[in-house]
């Protein structure tokens, strides 16, 4: 290193290239557009992620008289459903469910042992199932057919076997 360059009088600058400035502007515009898209989808169109619902004790939640002691469908007069599901190595209870087409189903899922995943194929329902927590999301089934719900988090040796089926009837 030469003596001159130790001199603090060396002219300093960021040396921003015009292309570089435009690139940064373009990046900022892209990010604003993306952020606007997910914001509108999330807060105006209702595509939402799970939020805290309830804390439970994983050792007692499926016992006694709470909804998870008797998991399954609850149908409401307006045609919507609540569906309570218990996850436990290596099955969901219940693992076969039938609902009517066009109905809104609100899923409440918890675990009594380890973490699981809960993803309903061909829908936006995708939740981490964490012991001590209740995961909740709702979806409207407009298309009749069968929808697998699968465990998407490694939960032990037979994780690949863990799934259930939801049938949407006309």
């Amino acid at each position, binding site marked *: 290193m030469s003596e001159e360059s130790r001199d603090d009088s060396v002219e300093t600058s960021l040396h921003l290239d015009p292309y570089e400035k435009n690139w940064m502007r373009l990046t900022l515009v892209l990010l604003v557009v993306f952020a606007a898209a997910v914001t509108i989808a999330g807060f105006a169109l209702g595509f939402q992620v799970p939020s805290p619902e309830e804390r439970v004790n994983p050792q007692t939640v499926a016992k006694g008289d709470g909804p998870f002691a008797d998991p399954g469908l609850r149908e409401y007069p307006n045609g919507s459903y609540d569906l309570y599901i218990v996850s436990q190595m290596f099955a969901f209870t219940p693992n076969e469910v039938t609902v009517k087409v066009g109905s809104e189903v609100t899923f409440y899922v918890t675990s009594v042992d380890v973490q699981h995943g809960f993803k309903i194929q*061909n829908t936006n329902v995708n939740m981490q199932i964490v012991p001590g927590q209740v995961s909740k999301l709702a979806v409207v089934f407009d298309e009749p057919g069968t929808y697998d719900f699968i465990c998407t988090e490694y939960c032990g040796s037979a994780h690949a076997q863990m799934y259930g089926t939801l049938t949407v009837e006309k």
Partner: protein
Amino acid sequence: MLTNYELTKSEKSFISVHLLFAFAALAIGTFFGPLQAFEFSGVDFYPLLEPIIQSYYQGLTLHGVLNALIFTTFFITGFLTLTTIYGLKRPLKFPLLNRIGFWTMVVGLVMAAVPILLNQASVLYTFYPPLKANAYFYVGLTLVVVGSWIEGWGFVFTWREWRKENPGIRTPLITFGGLITMVMWQIATLGVAAEILTMLIPWAFGWIDGVDPQLARTYFWFTGHPLVYFWLLPAYISWYAMLPKQAGGKLFSDSLARIAFWLFLLLSVPLGFHHQFVDPGVPAGWKYIHAVLTYSVFFPSMLTAFTVIASLERAGRQRGGKGLLGWIPKLPWSNPSVSAQLLAGILFFFGGIGGLTNASYNINLVIHNTAWVSGHFHLTVASATALSFMGISYWLVPYLRGRRLWSRKWAVIQAWLWFVGMMIFSNAMHVLGLLGAPRRTPLGEAPYIPEEWSGHLLRTSIGGAILFVSAYMFIFNIAKTWWSKKLIVGPGEETEIPVAESVHPAQETPAKLDWWTPWLIGAIALILVAYGPQLIEQIGNIDLSSPGVMP
């Protein structure tokens, strides 16, 4: 700054022993890659490995821990030892401290490896509780991290000494990037340290009855995303400050490179909730804030893309490249170190786009916990990082060992095979994820696999097989070089550490960009804002009622 500085024999061997552990981890870790990939097409080799390896998940744990945690950490600490010493042109201030750090990592590695090999820690490299591992697995991982901290402190002490000796001089970029990597790592690993020290170790030893799995996830992902930058930043050091020299050019902008590194220090940590978009115990509002913060870290990534590509374009044009893209074939593709890193950069382009998708709040619902995610980080850690590290090794090993690379041709083919194998593999994994295939699942035995997935599952196997061949070509080439009898005689490209000059000398970069305090304060303040309220809330409501199971 670019005068030659010859590392001492003991400095070279200290760095070499880091690499030896890194490559051994890579050799074992990549061995298990294709076993997963073949299982997807229904070909299960695991029964053949009994009784050494007893399950798919034991193999998957080895694959993740050895490749993503051990290979990376040992390579990075070794490489950054070199960038510290060589950049500052002085020996480590406390060589013993760095040795202690290194051997702490080795002890930790052994301690974690034994339970994994005994099938008592088949909890994968994310070790989500309440899946429970043998306590020594957690102790071992802790020691690996602590060892890497100690080595990082050694770099900082060395830099402070250099600073006293060289007031007013800009820290050389290769050293500067290494320091930022280690300081960021120090801050980021506080999350996993809290998880392991306050919950997992007391629980695994039986001192407490259970854990709070949600709080554990929050702690883990405090570290989990910046972990990706810990992997990437050393590759960026090479892309910014070394690759342009290897391509025959200069670094396009020293100041923008530094700004990008500072932004990574500032923004790497306060965005971990974007890994927890589907978690039940984190409010949607906080997830949204972290989504926006994750977008902001895309900015320094784009700066990096511009500066690295501009540097390469400049080099390619100097070599006679004409027209819009004519500079690309003019780059020295026959140099395996260059071709590996260029191909790593191309793969990372796709990784970056996928990363934006992952960060996108509600869009994440489509791909969360699916094969898309594994496909994504094979483009980041297994390409941008691993393939770049292979490329760096192609000059670093000859330099350290004083031996000629066994085969440059093999090395170039190896890099291309990695590229082709990864394109096939990661594309198939991304498609499978969009179709709903879960990650970390032996899909060959899953009962819910539709027929339409089979082509993609097969492509995963083919890609995995190509990657396996490529990985072992690398290991073989390095081993043949390491113990070769062909010593390098006399000066030349092979005895030189490639460090690029900047178009504008570093001394013309504003002095403020060499000033730590404001950036550190900013980083800590952002963490307090982005994480403080949720940490207070989740720690305040801690519930240790999950006793857990050893899988």
